[in-house]
């Protein structure tokens, strides 16, 4: 089994039962680990139609085979559950150190079922696993929770995964936090923990992760490290500026969504760019476990310190809300981390609220806080805080953009796909990337097939961003490869320098298997289709593979993308065909059989 721990920890919070079971080895060969294996187990273990916030839902904290190993960036894990935001299969990825520590404790994943009567946390120290009372931590913000838990377990080197007030209040955009400011952010996974009365999982391990073929593993991890260091993006750009390096280039292309996607060029881009962040507020880099790239930022503003902000966060609270004051954006990011909120969804929901206010649908007298005007730094900070505590009008924001806009009778103003808030690239100027938004299994997401890479960044080769030809195939390949990367337990950013063959080399030396790059990609396709089948069972259909009407029907008003809409209906049929799905977006019997599903 090589790098696999070979063991799963299963905790039932209703009965208090704690059990270990062997990793299903055959299934692991088909679904690799992390997102893939946990996604398959979720699909098999929970019946369709259950309440995601009920005790029947399960939540998987799943490492991949490479997590905790010597692979560069091998510290990633996935939170997999049924999403309370949109009922699809959620799989939120995070870095930091928690995932590797779980592996050191001897587990590939923790599965939590049922619901505790009172708030609890789970303490794992190698073979010792305890469900402990957490009433005194309930209501605490993230940093306070971490400090208090570390003090209680008396071990400063333990790793803490937790929710903040937002998850406790069942906000549908609540994140799972780990290592203080790393987040498994999307799809409301924090609310699932909250619904189970589970405040935290504290882990400490003393084991090691050994490759099946140590000599070979040393060689292939060394080769991967060399490629990462020599690549311009992972060797220079990301280390120097973090993900925020994207602000300017996305804005220069006229696809930087501004004021809830009403425009695509933001006058405040330079003031909120990665360059400005590095010049004025960056205190140090903050890398995840065994990461030579170190894109993570740690910033200080007005004596306030914290991890981040990322590109997406700067955009969501910045351009999307019309805010060009970087200090306010940094502070709003800190509030998200303290409250345990997804920064993309939080910022994008405030942006939607600002448009509802602009159009007179939200009335001034409803607001028990700052006016929701474009550009207000005060509004993004204070409304994020109130959202996190579900206080007053903040309770409406805590539902996310789709439900908020529905409440005001204007669902078309919600910039979401399958109720998940879209990230920081306007698809009207990137045809392939828009197709991927429409078809990503968790909804409006950029990291499940990042076609910005070829369409804007010229990697691995430059594609015309407006062209349609070939884009369906690129989307499929990127989605399948990303499924592999997410399931192996390494960071998606390694895909700038590494390709399918590199991942196959790492996987083979680590596990003792001998998959070709094609076979590994087939695992990715299987993983992706398993998620698709889960969503279809939950009632989703081809009609949901779409984009907000604004992006399909209203031409971009200005800038380098002026006059364009997204041409989704010209791309979807070919995409379905390449996927082996019928015209309704359902995998055909032959496809299912070929994938063993």
């Amino acid at each position, binding site marked *: 089994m090589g790098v696999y721990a070979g063991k799963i920890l299963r905790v039932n919070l209703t009965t208090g039962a704690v059990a270990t079971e062997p990793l299903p080895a055959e299934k692991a060969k088909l679904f690799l680990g992390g997102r893939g294996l946990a996604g398959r187990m979720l699909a098999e273990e929970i019946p369709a139609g259950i309440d995601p916030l009920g005790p029947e839902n399960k939540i998987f904290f799943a490492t991949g085979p490479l997590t905790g190993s010597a692979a560069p960036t091998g510290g990633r894990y996935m939170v997999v559950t049924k999403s309370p935001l949109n009922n699809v299969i959620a799989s939120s990825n995070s870095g930091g150190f928690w995932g590797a520590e779980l592996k050191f404790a001897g587990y590939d994943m923790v599965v939590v079922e049922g619901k505790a009567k009172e708030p609890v946390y789970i303490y794992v120290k190698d073979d010792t696993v305890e469900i402990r009372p957490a009433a005194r931590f309930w209501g605490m913000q993230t940093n306070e929770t971490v400090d208090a838990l570390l003090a209680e377990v008396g071990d400063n080197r333990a790793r803490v995964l937790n929710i903040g007030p937002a998850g406790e209040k069942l906000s549908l955009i609540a994140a799972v936090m780990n290592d203080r400011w790393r987040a498994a952010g999307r799809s409301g996974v924090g609310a699932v923990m909250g619904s189970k009365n589970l405040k935290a999982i504290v882990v400490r391990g003393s084991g090691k992760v050994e490759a099946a073929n140590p000599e070979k593993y040393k060689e292939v991890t060394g080769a991967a490290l060399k490629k990462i260091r020599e690549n*311009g*993006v992972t060797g220079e750009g990301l280390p*120097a500026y973090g*993900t925020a390096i994207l602000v300017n*280039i996305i804005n220069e292309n006229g696809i930087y969504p501004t004021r809830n996607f009403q425009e695509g060029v933001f006058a405040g881009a330079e003031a909120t760019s990665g360059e400005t962040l590095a010049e004025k507020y960056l205190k140090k880099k903050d890398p995840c476990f065994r990461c030579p790239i170190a894109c993570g930022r740690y910033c200080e503003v007005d004596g306030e310190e914290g991890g981040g902000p990322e590109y997406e966060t700067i955009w969501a609270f910045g351009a999307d809300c019309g805010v060009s004051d970087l200090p306010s954006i940094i502070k709003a990011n800190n509030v998200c981390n303290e409250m345990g909120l997804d920064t993309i969804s939080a910022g994008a929901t405030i942006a939607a609220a600002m448009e509802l206010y602009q159009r007179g649908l939200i009335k001034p007298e409803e607001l028990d806080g700052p006016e929701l005007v474009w550009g207000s730094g005060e509004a993004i900070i204070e409304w994020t805080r109130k959202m996190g505590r579900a206080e007053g009008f903040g309770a409406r924001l805590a539902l996310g953009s789709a439900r908020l806009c529905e409440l005001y009778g204007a669902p078309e103003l919600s910039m979401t796909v399958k109720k998940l808030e879209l990230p920081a690239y306007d698809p009207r100027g990137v045809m392939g990337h828009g197709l991927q938004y429409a078809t990503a299994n968790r909804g409006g997401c950029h990291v499940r097939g990042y076609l910005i890479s070829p369409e804007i960044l010229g990697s691995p080769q430059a594609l015309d961003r407006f062209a349609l030809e070939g884009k369906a195939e690129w989307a499929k390949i990127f989605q399948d490869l990303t499924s592999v990367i997410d399931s192996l337990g390494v960071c*998606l950013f390694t895909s700038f320098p590494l390709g399918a063959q590199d991942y196959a080399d790492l996987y083979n030396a680590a596990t003792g298997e001998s998959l070709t790059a094609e076979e590994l990609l087939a695992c990715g396709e299987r993983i992706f289709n398993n998620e698709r089948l889960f969503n279809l069972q939950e009632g989703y259909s081809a009609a949901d593979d779409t984009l907000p009407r604004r992006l399909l029907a209203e031409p971009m008003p200005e800038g380098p993308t002026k006059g364009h809409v997204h041409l989704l209906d010209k791309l979807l049929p070919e995409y379905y065909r390449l996927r082996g799905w019928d015209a309704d977006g359902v995998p055909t019997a032959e496809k299912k059989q070929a994938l063993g599903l």
Partner: protein
Amino acid sequence: MKITVKLFATLRTGRFKAESREYAPGTTVAGVARELNIPREELALILINGRSAEPDSELSDGDTLSLFPPVGGG
């Protein structure tokens, strides 16, 4: 002819952020990069008026030229 030249990330070091500059008609992107001492391998992405361009693309009066080193993220 007048060209607005915008530089980003590491290309700014020892140079500038954005300037309006005079060039002879027919100047190419590579010509501008040469004049600014930007080595070929540091010039990864080129936009003229927000649209992707090549080193041998010719500039026209009033263009905005944006130059980037390798950048990525997500």
